[in-house]
């Protein structure tokens, strides 16, 4: 095994190891982490890289997630490139620090292995954990396979560290379905990543020789300006992702569609809309249904925060009906989060697309090919004017 990643290579790795490699090839200075299923092996792999002398980084094996994030906040404020990772209850134990990172405008990159909440006792997959923190000011990018985890981390640093953005990015991948999925992953050389990801001087808030206080905020206007600039940077990050993806494709020959991917949408009359690992399963169903003559396409959302309203409107402008698959529940609002966002994004733009929301995949419930086939069939019925149920809980049918 190469001690240092000097050449590109293909290795069979889990999603967690792909995340660790993603961090590794970006040469972070400080890593603050704490283990939690199904993310633990990210921690183990990064620690091993350092123990083997392959990665020259300070690792903070914190006593909990709140400190793990606090350690990278301090390091990032001092100009270090930082990485962290967590999941589910760890994310919530981190919350106090998590919410500070975007307010300080720190370009931290981390990964979240999407998982259910407790109780009941489960470590299985859903999007419920990450959906609880969507309005914290972090950029959230969701991915579909192990290669996309690694590639999204590299791109995340470019976006986070861009002087126009300076916001933290959370790369989110489904627990079990991706965290433990093993497949061959192309791991670029550190040199290639360095060429794509310049080790420029990052802006610093302070450091040991430049101690500062950022607790005090005096007037309402100052607060409003901070928030306004933060919101403005989030808006800009949408276009930034598109630019960064184009450059990434030139460097590495892979691309994922930027804020979202349209799969077989050119002449689609109906569409599936989903995000995460099951987008891969949805592709299989789209292909099968296309062979049967049904003009169905898939919109795979990649960027959940900020929500890519413009790309969504363009992608859906010609469809007659939409089937949404949600892997989370927006408590107190009758559907799931994707459905809620879509209703909001489409309103007032002349796109009165009838859509049905399917809540699936909670607690590791498998989103199977037959389940997605059913969503397509019912969506086709909606396009033909049939009566339909607005919200369907697939596991309860």
């Amino acid at each position: 095994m190469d001690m240092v990643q000097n050449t590109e290579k293909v290795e069979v790795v889990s999603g967690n190891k792909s995340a660790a490699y993603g961090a590794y090839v970006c040469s972070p200075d400080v890593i603050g982490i704490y283990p939690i299923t199904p993310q633990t092996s990210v921690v183990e792999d990064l620690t091993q890289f350092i123990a083997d002398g392959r990665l020259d980084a300070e690792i903070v094996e914190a006593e909990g997630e709140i400190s793990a994030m606090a350690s990278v906040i301090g390091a990032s404020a001092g100009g270090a490139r930082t990485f962290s990772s967590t999941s589910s209850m760890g994310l919530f134990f981190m919350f106090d620090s998590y919410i500070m990172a975007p307010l300080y405008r720190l370009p931290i990159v981390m990964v979240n292995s999407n998982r259910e909440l407790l109780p009941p006792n489960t470590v299985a997959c859903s999007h419920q954990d990450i959906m609880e923190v969507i309005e914290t000011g972090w950029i959230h990018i969701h991915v579909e396979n192990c290669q996309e985890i690694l590639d999204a981390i590299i791109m995340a640093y470019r976006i986070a560290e861009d002087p126009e953005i300076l916001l933290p990015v959370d790369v989110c991948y489904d627990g079990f379905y991706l965290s433990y999925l093993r497949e061959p992953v192309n791991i670029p050389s550190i040199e290639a990543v360095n060429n794509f990801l310049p080790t420029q001087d990052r802006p610093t808030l302070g450091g040991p020789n430049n101690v500062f206080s950022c607790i005090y905020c005096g007037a309402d206007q100052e607060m409003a300006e901070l928030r306004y600039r933060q919101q403005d940077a989030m808006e800009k990050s949408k276009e930034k992702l598109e630019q960064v993806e184009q450059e990434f494709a030139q460097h590495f020959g892979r691309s994922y569609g930027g804020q979202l991917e349209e799969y077989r949408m050119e002449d689609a009359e109906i569409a599936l809309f989903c995000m995460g690992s099951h987008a891969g399963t949805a592709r299989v169903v789209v292909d099968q249904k296309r062979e049967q003559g049904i003009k169905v396409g898939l919109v795979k959302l990649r960027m959940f925060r900020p929500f890519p309203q413009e790309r969504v409107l363009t992608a859906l402008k010609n469809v007659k009906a939409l089937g949404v698959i949600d892997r989370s529940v927006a408590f107190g609002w009758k559907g799931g989060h994707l459905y809620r966002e879509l209703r909001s994004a489409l309103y007032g733009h002349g796109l009165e697309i009838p859509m049905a929301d399917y809540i699936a995949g909670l607690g590791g419930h498998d989103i199977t090919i037959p389940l997605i086939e059913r969503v397509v069939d019912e969506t086709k019925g909606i396009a033909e004017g049939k009566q339909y149920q607005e919200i369907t809980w697939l596991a309860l049918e």
Partner: protein
Amino acid sequence: MIEIRLHGRGGQGAASASGMLVSAFTEEGKYTCGFPMFGFERRGAPVTTFARFSDKPITEKTMIYTPNCLVVLDSAQLSFPNVYAGFQENGILVANSNRLPESKPHENCKKLGVVDATSIAIEEIGIAAINTCILGAFAATTGWLQLDTLVNILPVYFKGKMLDTNMRSLERGYHETQIVEYE
């Protein structure tokens, strides 16, 4: 696409076995992926893991419901009906057991490979970590993998003495499997 479902218990190495299959199929130039499904990590708890390989890219991220091949690491589960759920016609069963079954294990079973992996693993490795042995049996029974390929990928998963003992366990699994074909 060929789908393989592995049934074992925490500690036997079913999760790693799925990973080793992916490494081996990759080495042989196939598209492949695999993953485990379990609850909290516990020794002795039932574990189901999955592997797929194909000549075309594989994008689905679901568990396996219609396996072409079953690998049963835990002999007690050979009598569990749900282990055979969805077993496809002309299916291949690879089982860890110290005896051949008296009758055809399932109506769709075309080929059966049986190896006493627990005894071999305890003799060679010292613990009942039987995954490398059962993979030897898998290669011998299915013919979908060369033994050499498994030999080549094993150093990715084991180092030092563990590599030597698992290598012996793998090779004995390959050579000591009893194979039965049914009409």
